């Protein structure tokens, strides 16, 4: 078995026992990236020299007995996170030449832990998309079927973990961008509660919805990664001061006696029968494990997609106003005046989906349309929050499919933005409702992964992890491996 095939926690033990060094491990993963990287396009930039320097430093810490849980572990970072001195593009041509002058807080924490940074992963431009086909550079291919999308927007991070091109990764989730690609590539991905993880140094998409989250081979690895990045940050006033619990402590407590809700609205029209069958089988397994299964209703779910596609583009249109060719990024200096230069720069730098969302958001915020769209969407957001609050009076956690479909072929939905938006229908309510959610593999349908979503109340990541872990342990899907993960290094 090659080193890149192991979980984070297995490798951690091997590093501590001095069976392997971080340099050996890092070289093994880099070799595998060389072998399969062109098939997945998971990375936009491989930071080989940085990784080997960090690995050598990690080996020093391991020798000195100063190791933390992530010391010496090679991980991938979605290219929306700033690493000082390393190019960051957010998947956009408008940021082609941008080199951040500072580290994101998450990056600083991971570096402090002694993690090894393999590189920056491909993503939909400014994290807007559900297939990674909106990358301004190249599409990512799913390691379970190279003609299939990996999901998005954290599709590069998901493909990297699924193909063995990283031991774990970090993504960002605004409407499902960690959970949906995790589901489509057979890995674990979590969207923590808004405020659980600092957004300082995250290139913003929709600031009231964005949250950075871990992506990993199994649930325990996810808990370890969350532990490293969670917690208050004085540089992000929206990060929460709530204490961070030990996410491993109750991980294996099981679901005996827990009440798990199945939202009836989440078996949506258009859900593939094989996905529904896998989720129904998961529900049965939870029942066998001693959980009480409760039918619940989230009655305003039917409005969530519409509210999201007003609120997220509105916030994006405001956030992306900063890309004007003045302080960083692309500048097209053909205009005579500053405004003409702005217009030329933004027309040249933004791709089709980003333009659509800027237009949609600007429209929804503009005079005459604000009340009908933006204000109404914010009120619907209140209804979604109330739906979750009512459900969590009845049950401990909710379970559903993560995505209504398995990975679809590249190009299948690029001509219809609405068909693409529907991929997030089961994940985006958790962002609007500010609860936490995790996707865990729940089997294969026609050799493509299906994801099970567990949603828990705000700041109950411990509970979401515990419920997901109980399923993973009972179902035995924790070592679901893609053909690229199996490929010899």
């Amino acid at each position, binding site marked *: 078995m090659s080193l890149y095939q192991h979980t984070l926690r297995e490798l951690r033990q091997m590093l501590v026992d001095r069976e392997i060094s971080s340099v050996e491990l890092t070289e093994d993963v880099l070799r595998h990236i060389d072998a399969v990287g062109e098939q997945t396009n998971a990375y936009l930039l491989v930071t080989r020299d940085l990784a080997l320097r960090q690995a050598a430093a990690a080996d020093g810490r391991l020798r000195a007995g100063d190791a933390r849980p992530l010391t010496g572990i090679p991980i991938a970072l979605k290219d929306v996170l700033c690493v000082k001195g390393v190019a960051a593009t957010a998947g956009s041509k408008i940021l082609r030449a941008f080199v951040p002058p500072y580290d994101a807080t998450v990056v600083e924490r991971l570096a402090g832990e002694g993690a090894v940074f393999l590189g920056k992963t491909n993503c939909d431009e400014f994290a807007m998309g559900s297939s990674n086909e909106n990358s301004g550079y190249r599409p990512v291919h799913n390691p379970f079927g190279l003609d299939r999308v990996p999901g998005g927007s954290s599709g590069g991070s998901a493909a990297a973990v699924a193909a063995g091109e990283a031991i774990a990764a970090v993504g960002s989730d605004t409407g499902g961008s960690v959970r949906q690609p995790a589901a489509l590539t057979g890995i674990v991905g979590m969207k923590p509660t808004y405020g659980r993880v600092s957004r300082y140094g995250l290139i913003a998409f929709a600031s009231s919805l964005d949250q950075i989250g871990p992506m990993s081979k199994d649930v325990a690895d996810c808990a370890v990664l969350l532990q490293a990045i969670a917690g208050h940050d004085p540089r992000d006033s929206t990060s929460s001061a709530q204490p961070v619990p030990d996410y491993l402590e109750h991980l294996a407590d099981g679901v005996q006696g827990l009440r798990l809700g199945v939202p009836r609205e989440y078996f949506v029209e258009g859900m593939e029968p094989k996905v529904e069958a896998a989720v129904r089988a998961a529900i049965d397994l939870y029942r066998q494990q001693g959980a009480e299964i409760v039918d619940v209703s989230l009655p305003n779910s039917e409005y969530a997609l519409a509210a999201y596609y007003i609120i997220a583009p509105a916030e994006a249109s405001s956030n992306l106003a900063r890309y004007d060719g003045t302080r960083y990024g692309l500048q097209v200096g053909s205009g005579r005046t*500053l405004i003409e230069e702005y217009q030329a720069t933004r027309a040249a730098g933004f791709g089709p989906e980003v333009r659509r969302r800027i237009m949609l958001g600007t429209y929804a915020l503009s005079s005459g349309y604000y009340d009908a769209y933006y204000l109404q969407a914010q009120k619907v957001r209140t209804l979604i929050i109330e739906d979750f609050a009512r459900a969590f009076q009845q049950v401990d956690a909710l379970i559903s499919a993560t995505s209504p479909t398995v990975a679809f072929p590249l190009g299948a939905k690029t001509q219809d933005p609405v068909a693409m938006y529907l991929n997030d229908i089961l994940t985006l309510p958790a962002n609007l409702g500010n609860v936490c959610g995790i996707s865990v593999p729940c089997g294969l349908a026609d050799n493509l992964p299906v994801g099970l979503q567990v949603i828990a109340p705000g700041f109950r990541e411990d509970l979401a992890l515990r419920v997901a872990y109980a399923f993973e342990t009972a179902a035995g899907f924790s070592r679901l491996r893609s053909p690229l993960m199996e490929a010899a290094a």
Partner: protein
Amino acid sequence: MPESHDTLSTETVAHVARLARLGLQPEEVTRLRDELRHILAAIDALKQADTSRVPATAHPLEERNVMREDRRAPCLPAEEALRNAPTRENGYFKVKAIQE
């Protein structure tokens, strides 16, 4: 009254593009008009939701007015802050004329 999604006009789309500082070609204005009509039709369900009794949620957090101590701390040196600027001069960002 705001125009409905199926009457969203080319003029409105061109106006919104100007507000967003997106320099669009005429054929792209037409294409975006059609795409926005399609998207707005799909999210028209929003209007069916009964929101008469609820306030708007602008932000998910209950915490408000987070304050920190007013203490001096190092900030980014000017040279580093300017390093990514496409055009700069004498320690400033350089821009085109803002008026004719």
